[in-house]
């Protein structure tokens, strides 16, 4: 009895069969690709693509798959998959469309093998042995490329949200306002303070008004963080006024026993800016006649 050929070292016969498969797929390229595209259209997997795009993309994907089968190397597939993922994610193609499309292609290839070898069961099973791992590998490459691309987009967006969430606004020469809106967790608090300290240095601020009207709840941690920020700001030579302490927040702070006595606090932003003007020596004058435009 002949020893079973191992997958790593293809026997002579397997090589021959592989070449036969590749030749078969290349020969039937036109028909099989058309069949694939038609099935994808029927399943509505090509929404959002123009007919030209469908043509070129499907040709490239078809040929890339055959190349992988013929050479046993997946570099081109990986490169193409990541490029496709980049474009696909940008244009809002769903994972269902991509994976669905490849599953259809897998079925089309498989079906054509069944048709070709339907009289020779042994040969059919050998052909499937060769073809199926390749198809699975390509599928997993594409799926991974899409997941990685999604993760990249999510990471970028997180970064953008973080930066957007803490605008540092300059009101006058030397006066910065930091409106804090939303829940302050430890990550955000750290990022917020770092950005604030950098802005103070860049814009040579003398006074900072930190408005916490938009912070839904102030607990020991948030209060502690505010105190730390105020101290760090002082080390850079600027002073801080905290505004927007609602009656509820003030009451909570007193109840939980947070000591903000070292920090200048005021009820609303307006009095905060007035206080900042006073610290810096500005005085706002009211002119009876509004200035001419």
């Amino acid at each position, binding site marked *: 009895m002949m020893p079973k050929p191992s997958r790593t070292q293809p026997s002579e016969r397997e090589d021959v069969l592989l070449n036969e498969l590749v030749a078969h797929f290349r020969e039937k390229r036109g028909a099989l690709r058309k069949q694939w595209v038609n099935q994808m259209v029927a399943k509505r997997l090509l929404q959002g693509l123009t007919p030209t795009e469908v043509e070129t993309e499907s040709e490239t994907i078809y040929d890339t798959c055959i190349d992988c089968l013929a050479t046993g190397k997946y570099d081109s597939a990986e490169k193409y998959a990541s490029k496709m993922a980049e474009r696909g994610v940008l244009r809002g193609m769903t994972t269902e469309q991509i994976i669905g499309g490849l599953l259809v292609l897998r079925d089309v290839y498989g079906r054509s093998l069944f048709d070709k070898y339907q009289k020779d069961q042994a040969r059919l099973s050998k052909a499937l042995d060769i073809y199926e791992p390749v198809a699975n590998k390509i599928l997993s490459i594409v799926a991974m490329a899409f997941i990685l691309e999604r993760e990249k987009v999510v990471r970028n967006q997180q970064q953008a949200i973080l930066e957007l969430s803490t605008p540092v606004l300059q009101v006058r020469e030397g006066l910065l306002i930091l409106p804090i809106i939303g829940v302050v967790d430890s990550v955000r608090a750290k990022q917020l303070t770092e950005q604030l300290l950098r802005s103070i240095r860049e814009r040579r601020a003398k006074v900072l008004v930190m408005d916490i009207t938009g912070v839904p709840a102030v607990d020991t941690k948030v209060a502690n963080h505010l105190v730390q920020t105020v101290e*760090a700001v002082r080390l850079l030579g600027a002073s801080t006024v905290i505004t927007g302490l609602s009656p509820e927040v003030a009451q909570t702070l007193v109840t939980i026993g947070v000591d903000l006595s070292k920090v200048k606090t005021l009820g609303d932003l307006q009095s905060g800016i007035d206080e900042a003007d006073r610290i810096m020596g500005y005085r706002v004058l009211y002119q009876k006649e509004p200035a001419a435009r």
Partner: protein
Amino acid sequence: MPVPIMKQGEYLIASIQSALTDVDLLTFQSSLSEMVGRHHTRGVIIDVTILDVIDSFAARTLRAIAYTLKLRGADTVIVGIQPEVAFSMVQLGLSLEGVKTALDLDDGLELLNKRGNDEHRE
């Protein structure tokens, strides 16, 4: 490495040039204290822009320097603390309480001048 201390009118300006060892810091403290007496200095500026780490000993010594010089009749301003350094100092609980700070040399001088005028007016 010793810290160069420059005399500028009624002020002394000490600009730290490299990371300081504990011994350097103590030498710095005593030479400043001595020079304040010799030059009848009214204000001292210590520029720490170059330092990317200020540990607990350095922070304590800087505070001690400010208190010592106050007793000798000079105001001290620490200038140029980097944002990152400020943040990590505060997290370690080293907030240089009672010591004046300013953004840079310019602001430090301005602060000293302002204080001088205020005192004259009183």
